[in-house]
Every structure is written in structure tokens, then in C-alpha cells.
């Protein structure tokens, strides 16, 4: 099966733009128990989990860059954090190829926690004021919980958007043991 790079690229681009717009225009404005969901790390982790480490890292960088530009925040911060998340999720897929239905949930929660921690550390390192306290901790943990709750649907939507451009249908692929360090589905095409 030939990999349709063009199709994959525009799909990823569309996902990137739609996610940022949807996050800013809708999700950020809806509070559940006073907490917001954060789709961006979930989508970056989902792309990494579906496509592998390199596309995950590139997608994370791109969506982070777009987020920083759209929110007029410090350029490079979100890129750095989200490329790490995309890469890590991709490496998990390449090394372990986890198949459980709960994997997107766990990866989503971990990605959100990593993103929150990353933003916290970078904000602190950049000398910007960080409101340390129980309220901040509650916000961080709450966001992780909310994101964990929506991680599986987000993963399914992202996979549905990408599945036609993948060289191999992940729903039919068989579990393979890690023997050689693993490759992303893109590299197998």
C-alpha cells in the first residue's frame, strides 16, 4: 500500500487548524465544574500514537506553533512541549505498540499532565509569575481528569480523520513484538 503523503499532510494540517480554532473558540469557553478541557495535548498525543514519533513530533511542533501565534503567547513554548508529547506518544507506539482500549485514556492523561507540568516549568523558567497554590494544583489535576474523560473520543476522531491516509489499517494490524526498536507505520510503507 502506498502512503499518500499529500493526503496525510493536508489532513494533519486541517486537524491542526481545526483543533486550535475549536479549542480557542469553543472548548476554552466551556467550563465543567469550573475546569476546561485542553484538546491540544490530546490531539498531539493521538497523532503520535497513530502515526509514530516523527510525525507526532512534527505535528506537536506545528500545532504548538499555531497555538502560540493564535494566542499571541511566547512563540516556541507550546511547540517545545507539544513536540515532546507527540514524540513520546509515538515512541510508545513504536516500542510497545499498546493495544488496550484504555491506552488512549492513559496516554491522554499522561500527555495532559506532561503539558501542564511543561507549561508550568517553562513559565517559571521564563520568569513569568506563576500562581503557586492549591487552586493551581486543583486546576492542573482537574484538567488532567477532564482530558482523561474525553481522551478516547478525541483519539477515535483523530484516527478516523487519518485512517484513510495510513498505509495500513490500524484496526486490522496484528500485534508485533518489539525486536528492532520499532518503526512507525509511515516507515513501513
Amino acid at each position, binding site marked *: 500500500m502506498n502512503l499518500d503523503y499529500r493526503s496525510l499532510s493536508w489532513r494533519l494540517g486541517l486537524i491542526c487548524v481545526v483543533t486550535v*480554532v*475549536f479549542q*480557542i*473558540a*469553543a472548548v476554552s*469557553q*466551556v*467550563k*465543567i*465544574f*469550573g475546569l476546561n478541557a485542553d484538546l491540544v495535548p490530546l490531539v498531539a498525543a493521538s497523532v503520535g500514537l497513530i502515526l509514530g*514519533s*516523527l510525525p507526532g*513530533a*512534527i505535528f506537536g*511542533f506545528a500545532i*504548538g*506553533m*499555531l497555538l*502560540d*501565534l*493564535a494566542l*499571541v503567547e*511566547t*512563540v*516556541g*513554548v507550546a*511547540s*517545545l512541549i507539544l*513536540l515532546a508529547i507527540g*514524540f513520546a506518544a509515538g515512541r510508545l507506539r513504536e516500542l510497545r505498540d499498546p493495544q488496550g482500549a484504555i491506552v488512549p485514556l492513559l496516554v491522554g492523561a499522561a500527555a495532559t499532565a506532561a503539558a501542564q507540568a511543561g507549561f508550568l516549568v517553562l513559565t517559571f523558567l*521564563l520568569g513569568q509569575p506563576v500562581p503557586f497554590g492549591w487552586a493551581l494544583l486543583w486546576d492542573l489535576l482537574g484538567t488532567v481528569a477532564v482530558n482523561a474523560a474525553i481522551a478516547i473520543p478525541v483519539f477515535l476522531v483523530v484516527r478516523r480523520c487519518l485512517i484513510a491516509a495510513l498505509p495500513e489499517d490500524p484496526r486490522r494490524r496484528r500485534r508485533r513484538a518489539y525486536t*528492532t*526498536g520499532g*518503526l512507525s507505520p509511515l*516507515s513501513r510503507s
Partner: protein
Amino acid sequence: MYDRTIRRRRLTLAALVACSLLLLTAYFGESSDGALHGFQRGVFSVFVPIQEGASTVLKPARDLVGWVGDTIDAKGRLGELERSNQNLRARSIAASDALRVNAQLQGLLNFDNAGGLAAAKPVTARVIGQSPTVWYATVTIDQGSDTGIRAGNPVINSDGLIGQVTTVTGHAAIVTLISDGEMAVPARISAGGAEGIVQTGAGGPGDLRLKFIARRYRVDPGAAVVTAGTLANSAGLQSLYPPGIPIGAVTRVDDPGTDAQKIYLHSYADLQKLEIVQVLTAAINGNRP
């Protein structure tokens, strides 16, 4: 093939990280008029209309989710708010109660100071019971002989005389009100000095009369009636009531200037709404004027 892929992956990752750090450094290093800031503003200006459009389009979905969230939130807060409401209502009632009691105590204090009753060793008491009959002729107060109250002590509130102590126990006492048929209070018209006795009339409670006023005295409606104190011609009999305590105002006079003149009073104190009272436990100068 595999090595090349690994190398490519590492190179790309390193490039992306370097790019991020470079952007971060450049963004921090340049002024707000710099190229990166300008590019960001450009992207932002492009993004704003998309954002606005998306915000408008997504508003119903946002409202729906918000409504669901608000409903869950509201349900969660309902019990908490109900408890808070109960607490606030109780506090509000307690506060208004305290304000009312405070006003009464302040009134009593002013009354004592103005009437020179502070020397009569007033004992402040709360009305804890009232006669269940329609006549309201007696009330029970929460102070008794332990605080120096004795039978016969006059009882006042901030409006004037209300009665006298008739029964005393250690911690409580019963006060018979001036509206009781058995009560008789030596009184005088404040302005003219005509002396008589305040008693209830045949009409029942609330129908107070000033009796035994000599016909030579002219009494006009509106005149204030106060306690007379110990009369000069009382031949050693001491009045239970200090002089000058307001009792009521004359409302009507029938057959004025005759021996049968009837002087009707309206007591200053509302005898059906008593809450804080004072018992005057000591006589000042034999209750003489």
C-alpha cells in the same frame, strides 16, 4: 534502511527542538516591533475572523455543553445553597431579634436615665411567658428573688409602667399588668397635678380609667398620666410606685367637671407585646415626689 530512519528521526527531532528554542530565544530577545512579533500579529489578525466565525457557529454547542455543566453545577450547589440559606435566615432572624432587643434595652436605659430610675436598682428581665387568656393580665419573667426581686416591685418597660410583681420564685416572677382588674395604681395628671387611681374599667382589659379625680380639676384628652408616688397625705402609707413613671394618655373624658366624670386612658406600653422589662427593686426616698 532502519539506520537511516533512526538518523532521520533523531535529526528531525533535534532540528525541531533547536527551532523551538531558537524561536523562544528570538521572541524574548526582540522588541515588540520585531519580526517575530510582527509575524505573530499577522497570524493573529488572520486568525481572528476565523475564530469569530467559529465562535459564532459553535455558540449553540458551547451553550448546550455550558448548560449541561451549569445544570450539574447547579444541582451540586443546590444543597449547599439551601444550607447556606437556612444559616443566613437563622442569622438574619437572630440579628433582627438582637436589634429589636437592643432597641428595647436602649430605650429602658434612656428611660432610667431620664426618669432618675437608675437608683431604683432596676433588674432587667425577659418575658418568658404570658397569660394564655385573651386578657393578657399577667406575664412571667425570667428573673426572681435571686436577683433581688420581691413581690410588689413595680415593673416598667421603655414606654412606661406595665404592672407589679405579684409572685416570686428563685429564678422567675409573675407580673400582674396594670390592665388586670385587681390592680390599682396611684396616679396623677402630669400637667395639672390632679391625683387619682388608675384601674381597669368595666369594659375589660385595655379599658383603663383614671378614677377619683376631684371635679374641680379639668382634664383634657391627650393629657399624660404618670404614677403619683407616695402622696403627702398618705399618713405613712408608702406607694409601691416611684413618682413620674408614665402610664398612659387620656383619650376621652365623659361628664367632665362632675363627680361622675369618667377619664379613659390608653396605656403607653403595649401590654400585649412585652419582651424586655425592668423590675425596680428599691424605693427611692420612700417613692416620694
